[in-house]
C-alpha cells in the first residue's frame, strides 16, 4: 500500500459518515423504518403477534457522551447502538457471539455486544469504533490496520480493532492465554501465536489474518 492510499482511508470514512447522517436527516431512513415493525428492527427475530412488555429506560455513556434511551427490554446492546443511536460502526455478523464483528468495550473490556441486553449495562460506559479517533487522528490501531492492509471487505474490521484494544490492555495487565507456556509468568512480548490465540474470537472471512496480526504486532510493540 502506498502513502496516498493510506491517506484516503480517513477521508473515505468521513465521507460515509456524512452521507449516512444526511440520509437520516433527510428522513429517508425514517421512511424506511415505518415500513417495518419497530420491534423487528430493535430486537431481531420476534414473534409478530407478541405484544412488547413494558419499556425500560437505560442510560449509557457512549464514547464519552451520556445517552438516555427508552427500549424494549429485548434490545441487545448491539441493536441499541445500531438502530437507536445510528452508531453503525459495530457490525452484526452472526448475532450469536460466534464472529466478533459486534465487539465493543464496556468499561474498557471487550465483549460481544450482540449477546448482551442494553438494559443490563445501565450506567456503564461503552466504547465503540466511532469513539477511537481523535478528530482526524486515527487511533494507532486504526492507522496500523490501514498501513498493513488488515482487511479486504472491512466488515469485521471495527470488531477486530475494538477487540485488539481490549486484548492489548489484557495482555499488559498480565492476562495469560491458552498458548502461554508458563501461566505464572506470561511473556511481556506477544508472539504471533499469542496474538492469534487472543484474537480467535474475531473471524475474518476474507482471511486477512496475516495482515491483522502484523497491524496488532506493530501497536503491541509501541510503548503507551
Amino acid at each position, binding site marked *: 500500500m502506498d502513502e496516498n492510499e493510506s491517506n484516503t482511508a480517513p477521508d473515505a470514512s468521513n465521507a460515509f459518515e456524512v452521507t449516512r447522517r444526511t440520509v437520516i436527516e433527510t428522513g429517508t431512513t425514517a421512511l424506511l423504518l415505518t415500513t417495518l415493525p419497530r420491534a423487528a428492527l430493535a430486537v431481531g427475530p*420476534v414473534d409478530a403477534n407478541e405484544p412488547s412488555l413494558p419499556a425500560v429506560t437505560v442510560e449509557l455513556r457512549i464514547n464519552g457522551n451520556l445517552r438516555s434511551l427508552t427500549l424494549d427490554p429485548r434490545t*441487545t446492546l448491539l441493536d441499541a447502538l445500531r438502530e437507536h443511536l445510528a452508531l453503525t460502526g459495530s457490525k452484526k455478523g452472526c448475532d450469536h*457471539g460466534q464472529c466478533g464483528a459486534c465487539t465493543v468495550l464496556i468499561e474498557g473490556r471487550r*465483549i460481544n455486544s450482540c*449477546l448482551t441486553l442494553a438494559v443490563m449495562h445501565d450506567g456503564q460506559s461503552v466504547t465503540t469504533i466511532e469513539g477511537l479517533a481523535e478528530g482526524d487522528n486515527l487511533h494507532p490501531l486504526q492507522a496500523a490496520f490501514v498501513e498493513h492492509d488488515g482487511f479486504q471487505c472491512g466488515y469485521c474490521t471495527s470488531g477486530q480493532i475494538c477487540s485488539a484494544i481490549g486484548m492489548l490492555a489484557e495482555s499488559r495487565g498480565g492476562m495469560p*492465554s491458552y498458548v502461554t507456556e508458563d501461566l*505464572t509468568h506470561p511473556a511481556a512480548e506477544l508472539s504471533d501465536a499469542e496474538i492469534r490465540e487472543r484474537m480467535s*474470537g474475531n473471524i475474518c472471512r476474507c482471511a486477512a489474518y496475516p495482515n491483522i496480526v502484523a497491524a496488532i504486532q506493530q501497536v503491541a510493540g509501541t510503548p503507551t
Partner: protein
Amino acid sequence: MKAFTYQRADSTTQAAAAAVKPGAKIIAGGTNLLDLMKLQVETPSRLVDISRLPLDKIEETPGGGLRIGALVRNSDLAADRRVRQRYGVLSRALLAGASAQLRNKATTGGNLLQRTRCYYFYDVTKPCNKRSPGSGCAALAGFNRIHAILGTSDHCIATHPSDMAVAMRALDANVETVDREGETKIIPIAEFHRLPGTTPEIETSLKPGEIITAVTLPPPPAGVQVYRKVRDRASYAFALVSVAAIVDSAQGRIRSARLAFGGLALKPWRSPQAEQSLANAPATMATFDTAANALLEGARGFGGNDFKIPLTRRTLHSVLAETTRA
C-alpha cells in the same frame, strides 16, 4: 425473541424468590441464555438480572482453598494469580473455552449451567427430549459427531460443553447455593450435573429457585496439573475430548492420578476404576492402556462419534506420558 419483563435483583434471596415465578429465568453473563432466547429454545417471560449482586470475589478459605463467587468472570478467574499458581488446570481450562470476549462476560455459575451444544437441541424444528420432553432424540440416528460415548441413554446422547467444569471436577470442587428462604447448601460437583437417563430435561441437582452463590476449591492436590483439549480447530471451538489431569509421580512411578474428561458425557466424567489402576503403578504404556480400558469400558459410539473412543485412548496416553515425564 419472546417478550419478557426485566427485573434487576437486589439480593440473592430476592432473586431466588423471583426465580420460582412461572416463566422466570435468571440472567448473569447471558452469553448462553440470550443465544438460546434468540432461537426460542429458551422463552422466559421474566428475566431476573443478578449480574450486579456482590458475588464477584475470589477469597482464600480457612482450609487453604479458594472460594470463587458465582459472578466471577471466566477471564478474571483464569487470570487470578492464586488460581494460576495453585490451580493451573483450572486457569488453563478456562482459557481453552470460548473467546476472550465471551470469557469477559461469562460467569462461574453460568458456566456450570450452560446448556448442551447438540445441534438438535438448538434446532426447534427437530425432536429433542431435553428441549421438549417426550419428543424423541434426533441425534441418535442423526449427525452425532460431537456427541457422548459414556453415560448416554436412549433418550439423550448430548454432551456438557464446559471446560471449566471439567477442571473443577478433577479438583473436587463444591457448589454453594442459596434458596429463597436463605437456606444454604453445598453440592459436590460430582453430584451437580446429572446424566440423561429418562429425564434429560433435568440437567442439575438444583431445585427451583436455588441459586449458585459460589464454587469452593479444596487445597490443591499434589501433582502436575494439565488441561488438554482436542478440538476441530486450534482455538474457539468446543472439545471433542478434553482431559483435566492432576498426576503425582516420581521416578517413573505414579502415586495418584485424578482424571476428568470433557466431551464424552453429559457431565464432566471421572472413572474411579481408571484412577485406581494408576495408583502406585509404573508409568508405562501398559499401565496407561489398563487405565484407558477401565475408562472406556461400556463406551458406545453412535456412528458419527465412534472416533471418540480411540481418540480418548490416545489423548489419555499423551496426557499421562506428559504428566509422568521425569
